């Protein structure tokens, strides 16, 4: 087996330091790893915030932390987990695996991809830096007028508004990029209806990103100018209507929750067939139900607002539309179970998490259907019942699926298998801790415990539920530590994972683990769904021979570039300019102006940068 490979980054005439290599990389795999690493750090920060919240709520009448800090914690926990953990963890898989699954050497716009990463990372650091001055404290959906200047006079909500705006730029750029990549960079023969399900879920997710993020962009602009320039979009005293914020937020916000869960659907749809040794049941039904979920996702936003008094007509419409979503979602769950049914099930760690996902997601889905009934929702809204519901879909759903994906794809990303024993310990701890944390919240909520409450008097019947939830949260934290231990332990072992450790069906398993910089030495040609299984069946083997590493001679790859990072810094400065006190503030102040100039110059330099300015000789 040929293992002598020239890493082109080091083979070039001038050797670049590792740091420069990563700062200027346009390689989708390196970008994916950086997305994953930074999102995991943010995930830990968000988790720490959750632990503090749970410690404060462990018993009645506690004052472990101040009420003001508590508000910051739950706001930042929600914001972090949604925008800085789950979305970028999905982006890690988009980046690393979409080109591999469709048989491409990179994404359509490698430098734009790098810019998305840097804008996301800088935005995330910016949001978390707010703890120095006072973190956002108005809740993750920033309801006006609470988030306006009158009720949030400090810089707290400025950080939130501008941080989210920055993150939106990263998501939109990535949306354009991945939509184009999937439609236009597929291997020969890979028609749309032959694409792996994870690729499909990514494509549908990008549609949601592209059509929903502009709405929050505008809403954030309104909130920002309300706060900075004193306009009255959401100020009742000026005739403004805070309901407009709620509507615009949820026109974005509901597609956003599908942005969080659809990639998880895709990951599960990859793992179940592989570990059941059976093709996915009802492929086209899976595709169409996903598209239908996405489409309906734009017509249900007001079910987040039943308690605002929209009137019976609107309530009925949004109730019915919401109930409709249960149909395509039910189809998906049915098909997943149909996939396992009669399969030769291999109970490896990824499969554990995938099966855990199905069970937990069904529970979250059922309480979701309960919310669609407007009169029932009036009882449940703003209570811990809702907190239980969305953690069942976001943690029991998205995080379980992302963890399943991590175990499944780890060998491909890093060339090392994660330990099965520790992995299963991780699963059981996480499943226990998760249910211990969130299941009691259903009861606390139905007994009337409001969400976001700083503390509660004893004897209302939810003391025990809260104590259980706190214990569960710490069990969850231990399960994450077990995962980290698994990573550290296996990292010391040699990188000797085979190309196809699980018997996969998709193209990423046809190339060495980890892949070489150019992914495919020869561009693959696809003849059907589950291409690798077709090849194996034709050859009558369980595993294809280990693919040889090549020297990549003659393969043209885009060169590294500084401009994505520089443009990202410019965008950050430009946006920060809006929240600074005069004379540093944007319109005439230096910071925003410098940011604007850097962005503009960066874009021009980028546009005229020769495509392979630093290309390494092959």
């Amino acid at each position, binding site marked *: 087996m040929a293992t002598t490979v020239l890493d082109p980054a080091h083979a070039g005439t001038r050797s670049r330091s590792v740091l420069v290599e990563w700062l200027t990389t346009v390689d989708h795999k390196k970008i994916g790893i950086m997305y994953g690493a930074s999102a995991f750090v943010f995930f830990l920060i968000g988790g720490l915030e959750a632990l503090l919240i749970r410690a404060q709520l462990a018993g009645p009448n506690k004052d472990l932390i101040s009420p003001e800090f508590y508000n910051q914690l739950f706001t930042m926990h929600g914001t972090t987990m949604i925008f800085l953990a789950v979305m970028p963890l999905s982006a890690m898989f988009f980046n690393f695996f979409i080109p591999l699954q469709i048989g491409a050497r990179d994404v359509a716009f490698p430098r734009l991809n790098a810019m998305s990463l840097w804008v996301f990372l800088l935005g995330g650091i910016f949001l978390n830096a707010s703890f120095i001055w006072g973190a956002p404290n108005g809740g993750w959906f920033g309801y006006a007028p609470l988030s306006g200047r009158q009720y949030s006079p400090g810089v707290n909500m400025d950080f939130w508004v501008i941080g989210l705006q920055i993150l939106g730029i990263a998501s939109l750029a990535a949306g354009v990029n991945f939509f184009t990549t999937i*439609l236009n960079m597929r291997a020969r023969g890979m028609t749309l209806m032959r694409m792996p399900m994870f690729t499909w879920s990514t494509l549908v997710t990008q549609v949601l990103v*592209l*059509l929903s993020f502009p709405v929050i962009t505008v809403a954030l602009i309104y909130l920002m100018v309300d706060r900075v320039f004193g306009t009255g979009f959401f100020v009742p005293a000026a005739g403004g*209507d805070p309901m*407009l914020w709620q509507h615009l937020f949820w*026109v974005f916000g509901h597609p956003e929750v599908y942005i969080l869960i659809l990639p998880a659907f895709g990951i599960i749809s990859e793992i179940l067939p592989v570990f059941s040794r059976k093709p996915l049941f009802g492929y086209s039904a899976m595709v169409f139900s996903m598209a239908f979920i996405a489409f309906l996702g734009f*017509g249900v936003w007001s079910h987040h607002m039943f308690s605002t008094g*929209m009137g019976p007509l*609107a309530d009925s419409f949004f109730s019915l539309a919401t109930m409709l979503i249960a149909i395509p979602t039910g189809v998906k769950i049915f098909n997943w179970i149909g996939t396992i049914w009669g399969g030769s099930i291999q109970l490896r760690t990824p499969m554990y998490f995938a099966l855990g996902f199905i069970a937990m997601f069904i529970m979250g889905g059922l309480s979701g259907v309960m919310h669609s009934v407007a009169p029932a929702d009036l009882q449940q809204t703003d209570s811990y019942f809702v907190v239980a519901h969305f953690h069942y879909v976001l943690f029991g759903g998205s995080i379980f699926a992302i963890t399943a994906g991590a175990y499944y794809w780890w060998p491909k990303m890093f060339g090392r298998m994660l330990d099965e024993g520790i992995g299963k310990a991780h699963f059981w701890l996480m499943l226990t801790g998760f249910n211990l944390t969130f299941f009691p919240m259903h009861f606390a909520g139905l007994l009337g415990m409001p969400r976001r409450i700083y503390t509660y008097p004893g004897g209302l019947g939810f003391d025990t539920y809260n104590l259980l939830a706190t214990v569960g949260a710490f069990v969850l934290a231990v399960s994450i530590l077990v995962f980290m231990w698994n990573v550290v332990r296996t990292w010391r072992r040699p990188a000797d994972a085979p190309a196809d450790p699980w018997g996969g069906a998709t193209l990423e398993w046809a190339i060495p683990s980890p892949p070489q910089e150019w992914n495919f030495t020869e561009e693959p040609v696809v003849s059907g769904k589950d291409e690798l299984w077709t090849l194996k069946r034709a050859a009558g083997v369980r595993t294809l021979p280990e693919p040889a590493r090549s020297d990549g001679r003659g393969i043209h790859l885009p060169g590294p570039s500084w401009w994505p990072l520089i443009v990202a810094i410019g965008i950050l400065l430009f946006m920060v300019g809006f929240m600074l006190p005069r004379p540093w503030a944007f319109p005439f102040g230096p910071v925003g102006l410098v940011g604007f100039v850097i962005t503009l110059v960066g874009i021009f330099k980028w546009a005229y940068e020769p495509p392979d300015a630093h290309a390494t000789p092959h």
Partner: protein
Amino acid sequence: MADAHAAEHEHGSGGATYVKIAVVLFVLTALEVLLYEVCYGESMTGLASLGASLEPYFVELLLLLSAFKFWFVAMFYMHLKFDMKLLSWLFTFSLVIASVVILALLALFTYNRGLWWPGGLW
């Protein structure tokens, strides 16, 4: 790609068509302004009776005229008529979602103010 461009020219999206479209767009814009002037302006008092009969449909007519302009620019200047169907679908899909969101928001807010379709909408 060269084929695609050649095909475009065969379909006659050349200079002459572009000039015709420009004239049409100009005329439609003139009609929009004219419609406003006839219905509400002070300079066209001679056409007061025409204005009175058009006035109830002012918004609908205006939207129709701009829809035509939109269509002409999208179809001919943006080449949708000659380009891949996918692009038309892409644009149409987002326009449909955008329009539905606009109408739904308008309906929700006018309904909240005690008005209802169509009087409250415009």
